[in-house]
């Protein structure tokens, strides 16, 4: 994992959060969409909040697909899940939603999960290399130096 790769993961986190928040802002403005006025969904993109939200979600998509090209799905998903914490923070600051103690507990769990997965390897070898689903050679995992070894090498 290089610094650039961590930047891509941070981009995934931030773009998805801001995109979702802007979408929510726009959809609140438009009001409830039901099966009876389904066409409302098609015109939703004309709302400025929704359209900027969509641009941010496109940026999210670009960073997400590039992360998936060099890391496992089961690594990328937890590693970028700080976005749910950011959603709560934006909900509180931007929409004045309350954060209860239980929600703070949820935030702590998510942060713990992010720490857990990011301390491990980002790519694992295919379980059945003969199944046709195995990784091409350049995507094969290189043994990553542990955090402690890196610190020792740097000092």
């Amino acid at each position, binding site marked *: 994992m290089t610094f650039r790769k961590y930047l891509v993961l941070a981009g995934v986190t931030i773009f998805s959060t801001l995109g979702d928040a802007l979408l929510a802002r726009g959809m609140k403005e438009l009001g409830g969409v039901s099966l009876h006025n389904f066409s409302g969904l098609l015109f939703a993109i004309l709302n400025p909040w929704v359209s900027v939200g969509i641009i941010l979600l496109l940026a999210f998509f670009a960073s997400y697909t590039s992360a998936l090209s*060099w890391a496992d799905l*089961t690594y990328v998903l937890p590693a970028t899940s700080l976005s749910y914490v950011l959603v709560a923070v934006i909900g509180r600051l931007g929409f004045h939603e309350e954060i209860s103690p*239980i929600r703070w507990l*949820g935030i702590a*769990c998510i942060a713990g999960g992010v720490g857990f*997965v990011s301390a*491990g390897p980002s790519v694992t070898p295919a*379980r059945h290399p003969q199944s046709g*689903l195995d990784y091409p050679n350049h995507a094969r995992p290189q043994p990553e130096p542990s955090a402690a070894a890196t610190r020792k090498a740097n000092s």
Partner: protein
Amino acid sequence: MNNFYAWASIALIILAATTGDVLLAYSMKRVGDVGDIWKTSGLFAIVGKILSTPTFFLGVLAMAVAFYSLLFGLSWGNLSLVVPASASLTFVANTIAARIFLHERVGRRRWIAALLVAAGVALMAL
């Protein structure tokens, strides 16, 4: 009725998002490390490789279904219900699906991480 629409859209998001994530992860592993391709052959090589991967478009289609279900859900429920509830369950579904279909080695560390995140997201929905 508002609640019914919100939870119906959550169920649809989980199904579509998991399908999309697995298809995208599979496609991008076939394309290869885009950072390396960028360095050796440039941006157009990446675009070309992605465009010649059919499963990528299936993944995008599934993501689009998930996206419109999200818009639909957000118009009925709160941001703080729809996003955490669908995300939490999508996490568990994705971990299982990545193990089955992508043959990722989901060790103890990743299970703990996935379950911690899913539990955290679910707690935030309370």
